């Protein structure tokens, strides 16, 4: 039997089965080992799928050999192969980081459960990305969401519970909207397979329920991807979750939601049928630009670095959505490249902050003051990530910003390009806030004794790897740009 043939199913099944196994084992070291193995398998299969898609095109896999419109189909194409690599890759880095950092951030009796929940969350996100079935998307979305609530609530602060609860309410509303939308399309077409839905939807006479479904799904996914002004759950969730969870969520959760949006827009709804009746580009663009400014501006006033980065994420999601809102090849490419680059950058920043939490006990600006002296390498890493958030040459963020501006100018929208550049000023301001604290303020008088809280080599290695990849993808754009271009062409050529 050829294992690679079943890769689409296996890469979801591995973490999904790992979760109950971990709960049964209970031993922390076993839990960690199983989680790492499952995640490594998922990563391996993702890479395999990506390279297979590069050579052979779309891979369709029928679960249980039930042929598509009836059975569940897993469908890997240029777009989601790219997403799968991002999710499982950062998942791997975060997981390897988590062993030591959890010792400081997660209550000891819950630590093995952390790995169970992490595996569930990973399975959910990978499942959302890979499935070609609308209802299956909803199921995986709930799996990932429920496990995320638990992961956030594992934070040590009391606000973690509140943050988890807040996300639970808003996430549930979002998921409900999505399932209502899916239900409406099911009523119209009688199918749940995304490709099939798309084909049948073009023969539907009455467009009104289609618009309703479109509105429900859009609103629901906007909530999940934290598009301004639907972003309220995100700052608290990122701030109060254990740092590893923040890193994982920031790098993957919102990104997969963006993928779901693209999937519905391009595969199910025919945008040429929708856009004449709805100024979609304008609407999305306006929200995206609002997000760029509001998110970044709010970030400037934060005193907690995690919260600052969370608001910066709200702004950066705006850049991704702006690229998508242009609805042309270069815009989509820019959006997708930024999706990846921002994921990597934010993942790296949160892991570096994890080192700070472990060593100094918190991420308030007061903890960070004098970081350039107390933790010079970490401070420098955070500076690099900050430069990437601004979009300075030599970092991944530059590539995406460059393509975003180019995409806007290609359409003659010079004022949109101007907005992108102007909002970067705000990014400079919030990154400077970090620089100010780390390099121009004296370290706190009383440092925690350094032997009690040491960062271990696996944490440092993972933070270093992600930080280096922030720089690496600023130079080697073959994977990121290549995949994004292929995905954009695939999406636009799909209909």
């Amino acid at each position, binding site marked *: 039997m050829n294992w690679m043939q079943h890769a689409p199913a296996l890469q979801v099944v591995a973490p999904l089965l790992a979760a109950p196994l971990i709960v049964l084992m209970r031993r922390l070291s076993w839990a960690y080992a199983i989680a790492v193995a499952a995640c490594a398998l998922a990563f391996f299969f993702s890479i395999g799928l990506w390279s297979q898609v590069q050579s052979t095109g779309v891979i369709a896999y029928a679960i249980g050999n039930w042929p598509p419109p009836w059975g569940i189909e897993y469908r890997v194409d240029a777009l989601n192969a790219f997403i799968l690599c991002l999710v499982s890759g950062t998942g791997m880095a975060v997981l390897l980081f988590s062993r030591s950092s959890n010792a400081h951030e997660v209550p000891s009796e819950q630590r093995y459960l952390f790995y169970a929940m992490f595996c569930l969350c990973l399975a959910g996100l990978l499942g959302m990305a890979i499935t070609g079935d609308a209802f299956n998307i909803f199921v995986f979305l709930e799996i990932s969401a429920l496990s995320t609530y638990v992961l956030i609530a594992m934070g040590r602060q009391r606000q973690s519970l509140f943050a988890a609860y807040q996300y639970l309410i808003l996430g549930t509303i979002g998921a409900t909207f999505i399932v209502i939308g899916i239900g409406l399309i099911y009523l119209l077409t009688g199918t749940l397979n995304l490709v099939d839905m798309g084909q049948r939807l073009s023969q539907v006479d009455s467009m009104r329920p289609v618009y309703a479904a479109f509105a429900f799904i859009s609103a629901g996914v906007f909530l999940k991807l934290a598009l301004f002004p639907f972003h309220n759950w995100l700052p608290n969730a990122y701030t109060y979750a254990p740092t590893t969870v923040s890193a994982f969520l920031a790098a993957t959760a919102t990104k997969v939601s963006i993928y779901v949006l693209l999937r519905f827009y391009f595969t199910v709804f025919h945008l040429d049928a929708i856009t004449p009746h709805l100024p979609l580009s304008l609407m999305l663009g306006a929200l995206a630009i609002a997000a760029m400014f509001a998110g970044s501006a709010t970030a400037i006033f934060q005193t907690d670095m995690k919260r600052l980065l969370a608001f910066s994420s709200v702004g950066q999601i705006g850049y991704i959505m702006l690229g998508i809102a242009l609805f042309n090849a270069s815009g989509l490419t820019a959006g997708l490249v930024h999706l990846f680059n921002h994921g990597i950058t934010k993942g790296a920043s949160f892991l570096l902050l994890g080192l700070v939490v472990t060593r100094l006990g918190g991420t308030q600006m007061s903890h960070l003051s004098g970081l350039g002296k107390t933790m010079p390498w970490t401070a420098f890493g955070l500076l690099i990530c900050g430069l990437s958030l601004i979009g300075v040459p030599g970092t991944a963020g530059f590539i995406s910003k*460059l393509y975003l501006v180019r995409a806007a100018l290609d359409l003659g929208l010079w004022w949109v390009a101007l907005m992108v*550049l102007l909002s*970067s000023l705000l990014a*400079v301001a919030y990154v*400077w806030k970090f620089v100010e604290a780390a390099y*121009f303020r004296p370290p706190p008088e009383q440092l925690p004794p350094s032997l009690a809280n040491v960062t271990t080599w696996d944490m440092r290695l993972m933070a270093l790897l992600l930080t280096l990849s922030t720089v690496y993808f600023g*130079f080697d*754009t073959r994977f990121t740009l290549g995949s994004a271009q292929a995905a954009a062409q695939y999406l636009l050529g799909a209909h």
Partner: protein
Amino acid sequence: MFEPQTLLLALVLIPALGAMLLTWAGRWPNWREAITFTTAGLLLVTVCQLVPLVLAQQTPSITLWTLAPGLTLALSLEPLGLLFALIASGLWVINSMYSVGYLRANAEGNQTRFFACFALSIAATMGIATSANLFTLFLFYELLTLLTFPLVTHHGTPEAQKGGRIYLSILLGTSMLLLLPALIAVWAFTGTTDFKAGGILAGHVSGPWVGVLLALAMFGIGKAALMPFHHWLPNAMVAPTPVSALLHAVAVVKAGVFTVVKLVVYLFGVDFLRQSGQAAWLTWVAGFSIVVASIVALQADNLKRRLAFSTVSQLSYVTLATALLSTWSIKAAALHIAAHAVGKITLFFAAGAIYTAAHKTRVSELNGIGRRMPWTMGAFGLAALSMIGLPPTFGFISKWYLVSGAMATANNFALVVIALSTLLNAAYFLPIVYQAFFKPLSPEDEHHPHGEAPWPMVLALSVTAGLTVALFFFPDGALALASRLA
């Protein structure tokens, strides 16, 4: 002997490797210094090997990496870059000698970090000099800012921290807020950022956009210290004097004005700018900077502060010369980069020597010091003549070309600015020389005898002062390079 491409790459790699080696040898100061000298010497030799190639109309270039279409990491050496590389590497050798004397005499701490950052800064400077496109230049430009930051805050005092904060915020701020948008816009408009003779913007950008882009670029180059973005320069004077000497007379500020000239000549294109008529404002801004900075310098009592404002003013000479957009003035810009570098480094060396020998930082304390430190003050006098633009110094030649450029373009404003600032320069430099040689020592000083600074410092400043004069009598090499520009 070596391929030109290898030599080009070596320009950046030699100082970078040197930095690694001397960090490793940090525990043995004599070895460390030996490595610094070897590296500096090797770099100078490498640059010299490239001179005949460039004079023979060749442009050695190498593409290291392609990021995206039209976006490459590439090096290439044209005459202006070679001139800049020659100045920086040549003065690095002399400055290393001076640094050793200065750091040891003043018992500075963290000397290994100092020399390592210094060598890395030179690597970044070489990168700027050899950049084949704006993207590469921007990378090295930002690197230079980051690498010189530990040098500026070397003392670690609150004052040094404050200076470092202003340094970092203005230099990073202007480059990210103004120059980076210009870089992105250039790439978006033309699909490339390569430097080409005659510029690349013609046919892609027109009307007021040219002016906007020029403004973004010129103000974005914070290192050129065009007002109102000049504050970092006087504030960076908290650094040890060798840093002020090499970085804030040669590498950093010259990287700024070098970029100004480079962008105008190779990115915008002199003819294109002249036809667009969008560069007139730059002469006004530069002229304003020249005069105002000179007036501030006139009032400064702290010697290094006076030199710093003189630098602000002299840098704007280069910008003014570039903005005039005539064949003569572009040559003047290139020559003035060299003239000011050699002259100003001498002045800073002298200031540091005075501080080391007599522990004096104020102009008003310098009465009669020339009799105790004749070599130092003699060199100071020669360099001051070069700043004013009088023979027999190199400054005369660059000013000659500048005046010719202003005449050729019939720009009366520029002529008035040059005349006025020459007077101001004389007014703030000559009294120092007069005080030093002709006024009596104050009674207090009579009781504190001192001689010259340690010999490596005196030798260094004598050599640079000698260079100022030598380049007046033998300017052919510099002229040959400058005339290949325009």
